[in-house]
């Protein structure tokens, strides 16, 4: 029974919370009411059985509780009228799946409002849409629980006092706002895919949350090319996750991974989505990034990889998103396709970019090309530079091994 409630918690949390916020008009009140509803489920379901639609059951209970709370808090007739109106809404909404789905959209657009800092957007999304506890969100950001609790409280306060509306943005604003949501989900994914610090290469929990969010967006914004592109990117990149580390936990490069162990089903789904996403012109950045991933996924081996196509995709990406990270990835592709000298030349054009100076992949890319050219001293210096900037244990071990190999 507890398993049933736990399962409902995982899959229905956002659903129920989003719907309850609309009635409560207040995120904190809604959160409490939703917790109450889940507690009630633990008591009631053993007696009445697990309902056919757990989400609807929980939503009804949470919303009723919210109305109770509002009635008790309110002393103005005007507010009571609003509450009564919302109660009627509640009766029709529970039966209407699409309206409930809209609430999750409302919620994610609120969490990812541009007036909130990016870290706040990510924290709110993880807490309110993924149902992570405050402690779990704190761990994702590597801060203390009390720091994260304060951050979330401030964020919810800002939403309230500055009156950030609980709705799907207007048509004019929608493209930009969707882009903001996609960036947040992408950030959750990349943080999980290669954890910036810590003992493991990946944080599966964050990757899974990102995938859930991307799937949710795909259902709710079914014809959006950006959403299709992001889901494709996550599926195609994550298809490789079993092969990114060897049995001893060491880092395996793309060239070393056993492609038979890649998730064929995820790749197939990802490729379909890429084709769909690329139909939008000009192509969106997630579609293009996913396309690069697709080139790797479709290539039976490292040696057969179509680097020319990859470089072309990065060229397209740079036109609309001249990001130094994209330029770095392109330079690496150039080095692989045309040789390490060409790679170093491409990298040399990037060095002045201050944004990259802390990004250890620049130094390690340079180190690798130098290593291939047998310029040992320079390579060692570059690897050591990368090590000063790298905090992930698995990546550090890889870099240290390279240094050791140079000294042999």
């Amino acid at each position, binding site marked *: 029974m507890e398993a049933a409630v736990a399962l409902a918690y995982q899959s229905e949390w956002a659903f129920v919370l989003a719907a309850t916020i609309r009635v409560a008009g207040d995120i904190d009140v809604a959160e409490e009411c939703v917790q109450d509803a889940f507690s009630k489920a633990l008591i009631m379901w053993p007696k009445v059985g697990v309902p056919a639609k757990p989400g609807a059951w929980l939503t009804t209970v949470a919303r009723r509780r919210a109305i109770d709370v509002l009635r008790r808090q309110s002393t103005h007739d005007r507010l009571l009228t609003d509450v009564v109106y919302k109660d009627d809404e509640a009766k029709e909404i529970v039966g209407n799946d699409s309206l409930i789905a809209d609430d999750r959209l409302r919620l994610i657009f609120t969490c990812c409002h541009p007036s909130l800092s990016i870290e706040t957007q990510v924290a709110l999304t993880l807490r309110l849409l993924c149902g992570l506890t405050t402690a779990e969100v704190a761990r994702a950001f590597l801060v203390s629980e009390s720091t994260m609790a304060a951050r979330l409280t401030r964020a919810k306060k800002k939403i309230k*006092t500055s*009156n950030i509306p609980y709705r799907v943005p207007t048509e004019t604003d929608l493209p930009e706002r969707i882009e903001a949501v996609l960036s947040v989900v992408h950030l959750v994914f990349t943080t999980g895919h290669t954890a910036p610090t810590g003992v493991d290469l990946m944080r599966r929990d964050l990757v899974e949350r990102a995938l859930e969010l991307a799937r949710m967006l795909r259902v709710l914004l079914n014809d959006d090319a950006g959403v299709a592109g992001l889901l494709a990117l996550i599926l195609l990149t994550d298809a490789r996750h079993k092969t990114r580390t060897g049995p001893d936990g060491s880092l395996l490069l793309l060239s070393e991974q056993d492609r038979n162990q890649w998730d064929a089903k995820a790749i197939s789904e990802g490729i379909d989505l890429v084709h769909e996403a690329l139909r939008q012109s000009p192509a969106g950045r997630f579609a293009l990034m996913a396309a690069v991933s697709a080139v790797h996924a479709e290539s039976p081996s490292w040696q057969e990889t179509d680097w020319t196509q990859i470089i072309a995709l990065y060229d397209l990406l740079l036109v609309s998103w001249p990001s130094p990270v994209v330029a770095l990835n392109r330079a690496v592709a150039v080095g692989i396709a045309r040789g390490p000298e060409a790679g170093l030349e491409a990298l040399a054009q990037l060095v002045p970019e201050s944004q990259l100076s802390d990004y250890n992949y620049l130094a390690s890319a340079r180190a690798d090309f130098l290593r291939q050219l047998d310029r040992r001293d320079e390579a060692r210096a570059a690897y050591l530079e990368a090590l000063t900037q790298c905090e992930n244990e698995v990546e550090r071990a890889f870099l240290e091994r390279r240094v050791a190999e140079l000294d042999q």
Partner: protein
Amino acid sequence: MSEYLVLIYENEASWANANGETAGKMMAEHESFGQNNASKLRGGNALHPTSSATSLRRDASGKLLITDGAFAETKEALGGYYVIEAADLDEAIAIAGQVPAAFGGVEVRPIRVFD
């Protein structure tokens, strides 16, 4: 409906160096802004530069300290404000985004209501 204060922050040196044409253009833009958003405006004023400001603080003994200039030294200085009414932050941003602020930008702050 909520009220928001739209604070205009601009680089004063740029303003001082602006010629009459630029200043005239800015005035016209503020007038247009006012006309286009008349129903949402609840007030607004241009301020004299920070060189005309006087700041007041109390020291540890409670004595009033009077100093010349703005309260806080900032790169961009407060040059004016509007009070607007908007249904929510999105609407406030849409209105505030139209406020002319060639040498800086604007801050949108919700006005606090005490029951």
